[in-house]
């Protein structure tokens, strides 16, 4: 994490104060969490166990990495993965969960998903005696949720943004998925940080990112917005809770020649990290989660649970902020550089 080094435009005292305030929630949350793969890996085994892996979709870098890593980890630990991918279709997701429950696996791991849709079925799995673990979705029916620390992600990204724009100016926000918990936490952290910089203003109305056609839609929305704010400096930055809208926004800025505006997002998709690495691109920063590590950790948690260990409610996997200064280093760490 090199966020402090990369914040030359904000006073050190400001930064300290801010970190203390915005990190309060994080501190509380990390008390109940633990770090990745604490137990000795050699003791873990899933021999003879059938593990259901249900992914909302695998069209996004994060999902695919987490999904594949889970399948591989189950196999590595000697178990049999039953993996299903719903292709981002809620109806299919529910059907697949129903069939998974009928198969009575030793555990089910659910990767993402809209909480209100999946929760009743996760409850049915629990009622059928199947332990349920989740990745990046905090269901009350989940024994353990392996996720990035979204409070930390939100705080780091917001501080980087505020620092890059010198603590003042208009920012545009994509806020289409506040119903998805990680997005909500990241957004709330942005608001928490901005609150302490009275010269930073979130432009109203906020934009809504969509699925599918996220990139094209973000491109169109930002192009339209640039026509509304034609003067250079009238917008300083564009924020989104994930990096696919950031990709479309960055492309729109480049196409319109408005590269003075910086873009910010989360997830560490290779194409966005490439843009961050390009000194001429408006992509300012992208917080890279470690989805493969998250996937592996979730499966290791299943093995621990089935071995009789007690799991914490949340397991946090470290996220890395990639900015113009350190992006090559982060890409190498993620193994995609």
């Amino acid at each position, binding site marked *: 994490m090199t966020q402090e080094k990369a914040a030359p435009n904000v006073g050190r005292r400001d930064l300290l104060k801010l970190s203390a305030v915005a990190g309060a929630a994080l501190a509380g949350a990390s008390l109940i969490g633990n770090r990745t793969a604490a137990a000795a890996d050699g003791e873990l085994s899933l021999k003879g166990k059938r593990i259901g892996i249900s992914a909302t979709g695998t069209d996004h870098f994060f999902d695919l990495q987490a999904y594949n890593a889970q399948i591989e980890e189950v196999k590595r630990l000697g178990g049999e993965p039953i993996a*299903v*991918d719903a292709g981002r279709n*809620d109806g299919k997701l529910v059907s697949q969960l129903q*069939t998974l429950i*009928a198969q009575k696996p030793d555990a089910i791991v659910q990767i993402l998903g*809209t909480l*209100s849709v999946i929760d009743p079925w996760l409850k049915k799995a629990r009622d059928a005696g199947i332990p349920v673990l989740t990745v990046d979705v905090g269901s009350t029916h989940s024994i353990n949720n392996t996720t990035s620390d979204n409070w930390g992600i939100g705080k780091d990204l917001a501080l980087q943004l505020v620092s890059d724009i010198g603590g003042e100016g208009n920012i545009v926000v994509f806020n*289409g998925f506040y119903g998805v918990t990680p997005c909500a936490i990241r957004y709330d952290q942005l608001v928490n940080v901005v609150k302490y910089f009275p010269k930073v203003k979130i432009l109203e109305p906020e934009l809504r990112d969509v699925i599918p056609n996220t990139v094209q839609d973000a491109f169109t929305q930002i192009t339209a917005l640039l026509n509304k704010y034609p003067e250079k400096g009238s917008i300083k930055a564009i924020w989104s809770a994930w990096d696919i809208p950031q990709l479309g926004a960055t492309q729109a800025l480049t196409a319109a020649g408005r590269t003075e505006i910086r873009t910010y997002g989360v997830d560490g998709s290779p194409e966005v990290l490439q843009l961050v690495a390009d000194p001429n691109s408006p992509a300012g920063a992208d917080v890279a989660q470690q989805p493969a590590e998250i996937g592996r950790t979730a499966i290791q948690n299943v093995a621990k649970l089935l071995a009789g260990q007690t799991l914490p409610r949340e397991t946090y996997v470290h996220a890395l902020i990639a900015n113009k200064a350190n992006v090559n280093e982060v890409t190498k760490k993620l193994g995609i550089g």
Partner: protein
Amino acid sequence: MSVDIQLAPAIHFKAGEPSAKPGRGGTLAASALRAGSLLAFVAILLVFSLTAPYFLSVGNIGNVLGQSAISGVLAIGLTIVLIAGGSNVVTGGIDLSLAANMGLSAAVYATAAQLGYGDAAAVAAALLTGLLIGAVNAIAVVGAGIVPLLATLAVMNIVAGLELVLTQNTVIPASTPLLNALSSSGPLGIPALAYVLLVFTLIAAAFVQYTPTGLRLYAVGEFPDAARAAGLPVRRLVAGAFIASGLCGGFAGVLSVSNLSGSTTGSGEMLLPVVVTALLGSVFSRRLVPTVTGTLLSALFVGFLINGFQLLNISSVLVSGVQGVLILLVVSATTLLRRQEA
């Protein structure tokens, strides 16, 4: 009235008896295709029950029935349009707005429930939405004379747009006593939706296959000129088919809200599976014509196929491809047979 009495048995005879067909070769081929498709169905069930664990468990069969409920209701709606409009894929009856109709009706239901309206009002609103969409289709096809393929395609886009406006492309959670009852399990631990599908099919089949109105629908679809000459209200029957289909979309919307605990995005993705199911249904009928019971069998066939794939741990990516192959086979087989008959 005398027309009804004279016409109904004649059409029933044509629709029901293979021996009434002119081409003997065509009849044999049709019988072979029908027997073949039933055999294929049984063979697939057999293969899955031998290879996939849990496939034959009551819980799993109930799951497939429940999972087929929404697509089944929609496909039965489409079947009524196929019957009344004729089965020519380009110029015949088709309702492409059905999946979007379900999405909007579900959104209307979920919104009404969130606004505090009771189940009765929310169900009425959803069904009315479906009816209205069906009425717009009917006006576009019968009133304006637009080819159903284009008319319903346009309506599909309008309806999908309205759903986006209403939901802002987000999930609208909903929980009501009716929804809870629909998403729970009934006797034998089988999902309530499975029973809903069976009862709905029985009612629709009774209406379409065994009432004079249903038989007139076949007459209008297969021989529109003859039906017109016999004095049947062709335009009214075709319009009625679109309205019935719209109502099925509204009903499927209610079922969808119960299954997904609210309205969600992506209803448009149901369209292809529904069209596949309705077209595939023809091979389960005696004369290769769309029937309600054939559509139910087809919905279960597709449902068991997807379920078996999942139980065998075969990638779900392949399922769309398999559906595409199925529709290609069925449409080409029925087209070839019809040409032979002519």
